[in-house]
């Protein structure tokens, strides 16, 4: 019984400490490049959305006349 419990604890301990996370990419600092690229792409899309919105507002104004 004790052995079983001990085994369970060991397997739990292993699964909790032995998880590999992507520390390499982070410690080298290169992950920020990915974040920067994503931010640029997303901001570009956002600006594009705003221009579509503007264009629509203009059309709506035209239609009223």
């Amino acid at each position, binding site marked *: 019984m004790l052995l079983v419990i001990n085994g369970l604890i060991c397997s739990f301990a292993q699964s909790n400490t032995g*998880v590999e*996370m992507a520390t390499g990419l982070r410690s080298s600092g290169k992950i920020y490049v990915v974040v920067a690229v994503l*931010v640029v792409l997303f901001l570009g899309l956002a600006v594009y*959305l*705003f221009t*579509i*919105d503007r264009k*629509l*507002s203009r059309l709506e104004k035209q*239609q009223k006349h």
Partner: protein
Amino acid sequence: MKHAWWKLLGILLLLYSIIMGILGPVPALPIVHETIRNVYFHVPMWFAMFTLYSISVIYSIKYLSTSNPQDDLVAVESVNVGIVFCIFGLLSGMLWANFTWGDPWPNDPKLNGSAIATLMYLAYLVLRNALEEEQKRAKISAVYNVFAFPIMIVLMYILPKTTDSLHPGAGGNSGFGQFDLDGSMKAVLYPASLGWILIGIWLMTLRYRIRRLEYKHYAAVE
């Protein structure tokens, strides 16, 4: 552009979620490892879809009481954008499942439920296209929508919780909140969800405004 503050808010929230979602701390868990960050991007798709479907059913009910054709247009465009978010949710989920559950489509009740719900909403769009007369189309599709919405909730949010599911929060699986002791994941997930909801509503209003322009244009021509 006077009422653009919420659009800007949506963009800022998503910017925050992109930066913090990748750089922020996450709990170290077996199997999922860094893919736990997908929670910030996969889950908000479903929040946005749910919000848009809710808007749709509200406007369908509104149409049934007012018979204003513009309410019908809001309802259909909400479903149109909602389906896009649903497809994004399914695709991102399949990609994620392929690497963590070993199969892009495991026989999971939540997946099957959402697939059926998606077909149900696609049927809504097919039904609309099948009806020629404008008032009839608006009325029948509004009634259909009122029935489809609760069935969607049951299929996607209630039934999966009652059986075994690979998704968190069902069948003895714990929700991610249990591992997330300091709430650091919630601090990204909730802003991300609100951001995607706002962007979804924005896309819906854009489509609705185009549709309204078309509608008025044809009304003027006739």
